[in-house]
């Protein structure tokens, strides 16, 4: 009998200057993480609009992670501080609506932290996989 292992779909928004470079470094060092993680490059984590996150869930993502420079290291000096506030507010609201809080995450990954990037993605993919499919923010029209 063939067992279809559930594969979560994860969208990772990575800032161009730190986290995207951190992902590149993970690649340079051949540090494996699940292929379920797909990265979208943004100039800064503060470019990530809550609408993008909801859009990803709508289209079938099971988890969304936002990676940016460590606070204080933002290429644009303050972008990630705004990200931090915005996402704290948004995630809290999603939780309030009963949407599994483990499906969203913000992680600070510097350009030097290839290992952290891979470890974060491994961990996040595992967490999301354990939750199963995203049902609470799905749009059935996108699954037809």
């Amino acid at each position, binding site marked *: 009998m063939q067992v279809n292992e559930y594969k979560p779909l994860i969208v990772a928004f990575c800032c161009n200057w730190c986290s995207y470079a951190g992902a590149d470094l993970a690649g340079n060092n051949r540090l494996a993480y699940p292929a379920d993680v797909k990265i979208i490059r943004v100039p800064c984590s503060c470019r990530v609009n809550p*609408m993008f996150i909801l859009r990803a869930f709508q289209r079938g993502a099971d988890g969304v992670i936002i990676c940016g420079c460590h606070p204080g290291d933002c290429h644009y000096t303050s972008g990630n501080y705004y990200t931090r506030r915005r996402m704290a507010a948004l995630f809290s609201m999603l939780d309030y609506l009963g949407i599994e809080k483990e499906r969203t995450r913000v992680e600070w990954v510097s350009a030097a932290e290839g290992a952290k990037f891979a470890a974060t993605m491994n961990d996040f993919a595992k967490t999301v996989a354990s939750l199963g499919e995203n049902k*609470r923010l799905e749009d059935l*029209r996108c699954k037809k």
Partner: protein
Amino acid sequence: MQKITRDQLVSKASELLSNGTVCCVLGWGMGEFDYDVTPTVFNTVEELNNGFVFNDFCGANFSKYLVSKAAKCDGKILVLLKPCDTYSFNQLLTEHRFDREKVYVVGIPCEGMADVSKVKAICGEGILAISSNGDNINVTTLYDENPIVINAADVLAERCVNCKSKKHVAYDELLGDEGEVIESNRFDEVARLEAMSADERFAFWQNELSRCIRCNACRDACPACTCEKCVFDNPNSGVENKSPANSFEEKLFHIIRAYHVAGRCTDCGECSRVCPQNIPLHLLNRKFIKDINEFYGDYQAGEEVGMRAPLVNYTTEDLEPGEVFDRGADNA
């Protein structure tokens, strides 16, 4: 139940119209029924005398009208603002949505407004007349010979039960005494929801939001929603829609709307007041307000003109998005 009377307001408005301070008055216009009051622009003393009304059903927050109406007047427009309305007024000024110089604000005291659906829940349909009588309200209906006497406190609108302030934070002139900010229990209901399990919360909101008919009344009445073009009306925004096509669309609309007004919402309660489906939308906005207060320190939007909203601000010591849940766990 209101301390100020219709006649006092008419006389003040007439005085300001007559002496040329203002060229028109934004007030409440008499409707078909005692509870049915329409925001109306009065241009003459005669119009005021004939059509102006002030009673326990004058809930509408006029601040938002100033965005469109203030610029249209040749002179100043007189606006009558209850304490909670003045917060919206300041917030709109902070966002440069109208010219302060075009507006003359008379702050009026408010003892809390009644919710007609609560009256109907007690008295049923067929209301012919409602009059105020001290702490009571007398309701004359088609089906009862004598007026039904109900306690005004029992039909107070939700936002007034949890009134946050009797203080006018903006006015040119104040009728009555200066009020004070009130310690309200407005976050209790949010806390109650927070204390539920995620499954229970999901079920609660699923049920509430499933009633949404996307009439946009919440948005169109909201004094924080004054966008020239809302993202939900903009075909290029990626979220535009006209119908609550499914439960995702319902959530998307209300999450994004609450997020867009987060830090700017003064908790005036218009969204819940106007919702034809009685969805407790204020509980979404209050969640953001409660979070902002807890995460970044107490903040009351509209308290002063020129304040910087918490979501367009930061400190280097802010908590991490992952930490918001740890705090929630402590509270639960």
